[in-house]
């Protein structure tokens, strides 16, 4: 869904005033592009699935073990994110934590308390590739409201901010922006990409593709869709079960107690990351597990570029 054009134009002050009414955060991407006076979080994931969270406590008392579940907590939060980051929540995280019975109560509570706004993008950064994976810089799909800075104010779709109808010059500005984005949009990956990649599992180019990757967790931890987590106990006589992010890049991710490791080689782990996002997840849920925000490309210590990797594998399969 693209923007409908049925929104209103509010002044920047009115928009900011409305945002300031609640506990408002912006994602780092939004913070970098638009200087807004709100604290930033890395991605919506950091709000919905914190990196460190205690699920239950256990302790030894009165000569017996006790377990106390820690109830889910969530305070209302308003988060302004880029459209791709909104898509990461609605397409990927929601599907895993809510669409897959049983629902995760911790995620569900926080999600219920989250007002997620999309702030449209007016240009593609060098790392952006949302249009390659089915997204759009002006998409308001899944967001509770949509905003876009215009030269004369802020274009707003949704409830809460009052403004005036679009003037014809603003309509033209919007149309010009859409046309401009259309021209510069990176073209989508082939429709059958998940199938091609699945076929290419045994291809011999993986070694070459994975070479250079340090196998660190920077890409997965800073990714808005990577949801894999670890449950690790803290403490011995009293402590808690802690949920913390984990990464398929780490050798211990799949290490069995028997010391068998199905993905012991760095190449296998890189392959798992690409295939999980671009093949396994789409085959299971019908949407890419990547939203094209480009954070992994921008933050990779060795400039390992997932776009090139997918292109190479697709061309290998073809």
């Amino acid at each position, binding site marked *: 869904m693209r923007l409908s054009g049925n929104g209103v134009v509010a002044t920047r002050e009115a928009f900011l005033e409305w945002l300031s009414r609640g506990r408002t955060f912006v994602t780092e991407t939004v913070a970098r592009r638009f200087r807004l006076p709100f604290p930033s979080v890395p991605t919506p994931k950091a709000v919905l699935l914190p990196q460190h969270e*205690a699920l239950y*406590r256990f*302790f030894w*008392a009165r000569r017996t073990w*006790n377990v106390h579940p*820690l109830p889910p907590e969530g305070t209302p939060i308003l988060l302004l994110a880029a459209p791709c980051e909104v898509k990461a929540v609605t397409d990927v995280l929601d599907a895993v934590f809510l669409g897959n019975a049983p629902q995760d109560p911790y995620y569900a509570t926080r999600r219920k308390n989250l007002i997620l706004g999309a702030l449209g993008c007016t240009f593609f950064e060098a790392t952006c590739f949302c249009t390659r994976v089915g997204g759009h810089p002006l998409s308001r799909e899944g967001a509770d409201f949509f905003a876009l800075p215009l030269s004369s104010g802020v274009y707003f779709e949704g409830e809460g901010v009052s403004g005036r109808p679009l003037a014809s010059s603003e309509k033209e500005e919007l149309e010009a922006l859409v046309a401009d984005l259309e021209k510069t949009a990176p073209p989508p990956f082939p429709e059958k990409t998940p199938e091609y990649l699945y076929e290419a599992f045994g291809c011999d180019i993986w070694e070459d593709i994975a070479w250079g990757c340090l196998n660190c967790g920077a890409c997965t931890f800073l990714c808005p869709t990577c949801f894999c987590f670890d449950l690790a106990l*803290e*403490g011995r006589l*009293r*402590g*808690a079960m*802690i949920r913390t992010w984990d990464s398929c890049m780490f050798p211990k991710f799949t290490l069995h107690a028997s010391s068998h490791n199905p993905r012991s080689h760095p190449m296998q782990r890189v392959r798992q990351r690409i295939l999980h996002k671009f093949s396994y997840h789409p085959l299971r849920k019908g949407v890419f597990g990547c939203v094209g925000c480009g954070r992994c490309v921008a933050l990779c210590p060795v400039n390992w570029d997932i776009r090139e990797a997918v292109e190479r594998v697709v061309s290998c399969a073809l």
Partner: protein
Amino acid sequence: MNSPWEPKIVAFLCHWCSYAGADLAGVSRIQYPPNIRVVRVPCSGSVDPLYILKALREGADGVLVSGCHPGDCHYLSGNYFARRKFLVLHKLLDLLGLRDRVHFSWVSASEGQRFADVVKAVTEVVRSLGPNPLREGESTCDTP
């Protein structure tokens, strides 16, 4: 529950000297603060800096590592090697602003009084520093 805060100090004592020194302090009825929790190690050279870090991580307010005097090591040179490691750790913790959390000493088996004095001094220093700053934000594991 609301008893005043008392520092907890983990002491790694070498089996041949400092542990025997602590023993002597005990049998000689020399009083020293009950704040230390002793871990007996074969030699101060066997104390990996990670043990010290782990003790701080687990909530110790201070750490004391004690071994034989230079030249007196039961294994001839263990404490000389230890001294090099400890110097680096000491300087690094100094940079971090945590210098006085971790103390090193040489105490021989015959120095019961000296052991008590060292523990007294270390306890006083750590007490003046207050609780371990690494424990901030720690709520899940401490209170049942």
